[in-house]
Structures are given as C-alpha cells and as structure tokens.
C-alpha cells in the first residue's frame, strides 16, 4: 500500500499465556478500515482470546493494541461487541428489549436511566434483526438464533465504528445466518470495520472480504482471495484441512 492509512485495528506483538502455555504467540495484525474480516483457525487457536485481548478483557503478557491509532481504553465509544452467546446465563430475568437497551448504558453515563429515546433506538435495532414481535419475551424463551439476533441488535444500538463478533453463527439456523451476514455486509457498506470469529471455511469467501489465519501465531492476513490459499490453510490447520481446493468429498473418503 503506497497511501498510508491508519489501521482501524492494530495489534502489536500480542502474547497471551495460561499457566505457561502460550495461547497467542507474538501476534501482529493490521485491519484496514472498512473491511469485513474473518478470524479463522482450529479449536484452541486463540481466536476468542485474540478478540478479548484487543478489547482489553484479558491482560496480555506482552503487546499493544491500537484502535484508529490510539490505545483501546481511550476508544471505547468506537467499539461494539457481540460476545459468544454461551457466555451468559439466558435464564436471567430480563426481556429481549431490555438486553438491547444495555447497548446504550455506556452512552447514558452514570445515574441516568434508559428512557423513551433508548427504547425507540432498541426497537429500531430489534426491527433490523427481525425481532420486533419478541421485544417483551423473557430471553430464555427465545431460540438460539433469536438470542443471537438480540445480541446483534444490542451491538447495533451501540452505533459503533468497529465491531467485534465472537462466533455469531454458532448454533443458529440458515435463515438467521443469512440475516446476520446481510446486516454485517450492510455495516461494511456504511464504512464500519468488522472482525468476526468464524468457523465454517466453506462460507469464508462468500461472507468475508478479508481474513486472518490464526493458530497461536498469525499465519497470514489479507484479502480472502489471496490469503485463504490451500497451502496457507493447510499450514493453519496443521495439514488436515477439509478445504483443499474445494474437494470436500476428499475428507469423507479419508
């Protein structure tokens, strides 16, 4: 790149270890603004850990993170986050609408209660994810896909510049997956940057334009077309990839 653009997300030498086992080892990544980027890699590759380190939820042993050129702690208002659906207790006594309004709490500030404006914004977000009819449902009465839509709506009311999504397609049906992808692409068209932990290599090229291949180390990062090559994927997955030139039958035969 000849023209110098400040990366939306810049990760410098991030290293994370649990009890002396490195989960992330010296990871460097730059995410240019306005891309829809997938993070792929085998189980235990450190995908979720990378997201949490960028968000400052985990303190890395080494390394720094910049959002639009500044430390992440000064850029919280620019960040939207969709955690893994399984990370919360869905039997919590609250409604879908209430969960979505939680996306406005930081903007509201201390001591102020969500009011009419927050309610309207939350209803708009629920409409975008097709959940208007479920606004007053207790959240445990929602299906997995509906819960994921509620989480996405909560991120939408944050109205952020940079979004982090941890496995938004885990355990959702095809309809929901397509609906979520449509919203992610729409956000990208409006200039937002999105970093998404993804599992399904067969939809990688269809959904995303950029990709980070991760397996404790950053194997490669760049446009999907030039980065998700069979050779690099094989290196990421330790040579046992199902994605060898699209020959999916190959894996079953083995």
């Amino acid at each position, binding site marked *: 790149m000849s023209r110098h653009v400040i990366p939306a997300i810049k990760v410098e030498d991030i290293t994370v270890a649990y009890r002396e086992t490195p989960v992330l080892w010296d990871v460097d990544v730059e995410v240019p603004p306005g891309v829809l980027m997938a993070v792929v890699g085998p189980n235990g590759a450190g995908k979720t850990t990378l997201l949490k380190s960028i968000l*400052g*939820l985990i303190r890395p042993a080494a390394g720094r993170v910049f959002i639009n050129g500044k430390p992440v702690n000064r850029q919280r208002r620019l960040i939207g*986050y969709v955690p893994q659906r399984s990370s919360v207790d869905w039997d*919590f*006594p*609250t409604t879908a609408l209430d969960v979505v309004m939680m996306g406005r*709490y930081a903007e509201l500030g*201390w001591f102020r209660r*969500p009011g009419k404006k927050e309610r309207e914004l939350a209803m708009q977000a629920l409409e975008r994810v097709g959940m208007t009819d479920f606004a007053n449902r207790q959240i445990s009465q929602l299906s997995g896909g509906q819960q994921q839509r509620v989480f996405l709506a909560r991120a939408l009311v944050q109205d952020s510049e940079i979004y982090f999504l941890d496995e938004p397609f885990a355990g959702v049906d095809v309809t929901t997956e397509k609906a979520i992808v449509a919203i992610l692409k729409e956000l990208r068209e409006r200039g937002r940057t999105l970093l998404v932990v993804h599992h399904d290599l067969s939809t990688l090229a269809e959904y995303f334009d950029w990709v980070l291949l991760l397996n404790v180390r950053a194997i490669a990062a760049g446009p999907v077309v030039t980065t998700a090559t069979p050779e690099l994927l094989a290196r990421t997955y330790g040579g046992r990839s199902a994605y060898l030139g699209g020959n999916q039958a190959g894996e079953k035969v083995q």
Partner: protein
Amino acid sequence: MDWLATLFSDYTVRIVMLGCALLGFTAGALGVFALLRRQSLLGDAISHAALPGVAIAFLLTGSRDPLVLVLGALVSGWIGTLVVSAITRSTRLREDSALGIVLSVFFGIGLVMLVIVNKLPTAGKAGLSTFLFGNASTMLASDVRTICILGLACLLCLFLFWKEFKLISFDPQFAASTGLPERLLDTSLTTLIVLAIVIGLQAVGVVLMSALVVAPAAAARQFSDRLFVVVMLGGLFGALSGVAGAGMSASIEKLPTGPVIVVFASIITVLAILLAPHRGLLPEYLRQLASRRRIETQRVLQALYRLVETDPDPYRAHDANVLQVVGLRSARHTIAAMQDLGWVERTEDRGWIRLTQAGWLEVQRSVQQREGPH
C-alpha cells in the same frame, strides 16, 4: 390472640421487628443478585467468616457498639472472600473447595475466640454468643439504628447503580468492553452483599444468615421474569420472614430468632417452588398432564374412527376392549372423560361404547386435523 396484641403494642418489640424487616428486605433484595451471579455459597462462607471479626473487634475495643462489631464482621467477611479468590487463582482447587475451606477454618477460629471472650471477666461480654444462632430480642435501639442506616445505604447504592449492577450481573464481559469499570462494580456489588449479610448476623446468626440471602431470592425468582420485580419480591419475602421470626422469638421464651426466620423463609420458598404460576412444579405437572390427556384423547378418537370408518352406521356399539388391540391399554379414563363430554355413551345391556353425534363430529375433526387440509 392476646399475645399478638401485646406484641404489636410493645415499643421495644416494634423497634426490633422494624430492624428485622429492614435487614430481611436488604438480604432478600441483594440475595437476588447473589443468586443470579451464582454467589449463594459465597454468602454462606462470608457469614461464617464474619464470626472471628466480631470477636476480634470486641477484644480490641472492649465495646459492644453495633457499628464496631459490624465493622469487624465486614472486614473479616471480606478477608474470607479474598482468601477464596486467592485459593482459586493460585492453586488447582476449585471454588467449591475454597469456599468449604474458608467457611470451616474461619468459623472454627471464630468459635475458639468466642470461648476466649466468654472466659474474660469483662463486663458486657454477654451477647456475643447470640451471633451464633441470632437473638433479635437482645437487639437494642442502637443496634436497630445501625441496621437501618446500613440497610438503607445498601438499598440506595443498589438504586443508584441499578443499570450497571444489572449489566455486570448479566454480561460482565460486554460491560467491560463498553468501558464500564467492571472490576470495581463487581467488587462493590459483592461488598453490598457482604454488608447485607453482616447487618443480619446479630438477629439471625452466622450459621443461618446465608439462608436469608438465598431462600427469599429463590422464591422471588419463581414469580417474575423482570429483575426489578424479582428484587422487590425477594426483599418482601425477606422482610416477612424477618418480622415473623422476630415476633415469634419475642413471644416464646428461649426461642432463637435465626432458626425461626429461616423456617419462615424456607416455607415461602417451598411454596413458591411448588405453586408459582409459571415456574412452579405443580402447575408444570398439571400442564403436562393436560397435554398428555389431549394426546391420549386424539389417539382414542382416531382408533374409534378406524373402527367405524368402513361401517355405514358410525353409531354402532363396540366392546371397549377392542381399543386394547391398537395399543390403548389404559383408555378407560379417557373414555370416561369423553363420556362426560357427551362424545360416547355406554350401552345399557353390555356396557359397550357407542359414539354420539357430537362424538362422531369430533372423530371426523380429529382425522381431518391429522391428515391436514386437502
């Protein structure tokens, strides 16, 4: 009912009841957060861990001032929670083991210190032993004042930081990602729970105080899916238990308050678990029974259809035992129910079953439903 009248007219008893109501409300309301954050066992460890603090505070100051004792309990309860998290972080023991260790070790130390205190010739030592099982009747106006100030302070904090506490209880990681000081809020909420526990120690006792945190909250959760309603109900159940316990132990001599309060709280909880409209076990069982009945009725209707579908006269009587052949061994109750609905009748001579006109309509509707619209 004479004793009831004296109970409510006696100024001292009224003051004590007010104190018990407020400490019950605080414990019940904050207990909901302990329950949702899976800290119920922590509450038990904290209340036991508070005992050495009470004794040490008395030994150091020689005073029975409620604020001093509560402060001692607070510090030692807090040290207990710090030890729990230190054990889970730095050893391979899980949290339940850490809680068990802290609970028993601190409680043991506390008991030893109580014996030492009781051997001292100091005046005013009497009363410390009530911290074991609680005795509301030993509460003085100054005790109640302390409970009221601290309890109301707890509830005010809960009110002021309501949305933050709700968010960190539901999704702490999201809260942290938005820049909220999640650690600080978490510590503050735990402190409020500890405070709610220690202000109840004199009345309820360290052994049973955690029940007043857990039981009303568990009962309240049965009735609503709104956090605010659950917290209010938890408080209400806690207050009711507190008042009932204080009243009973005040009117019956040598009856300790703590056990009575806990018995009341448990009765409320058991009733809630059994009878609450949506989440209760009994309504759930009745719903299952009703749906099983519906399915069974449909099966009988369809079996009857198969009996009469080739017959020009659908109202011909049949021996009910033929239903057994198609696997409806226990159709007797269903047929009795259908008789009540007027769908089938029994012939007078042999007791065979015969469809009525209404029953034949029902059979046809059932078959249509099953095969779907054509």
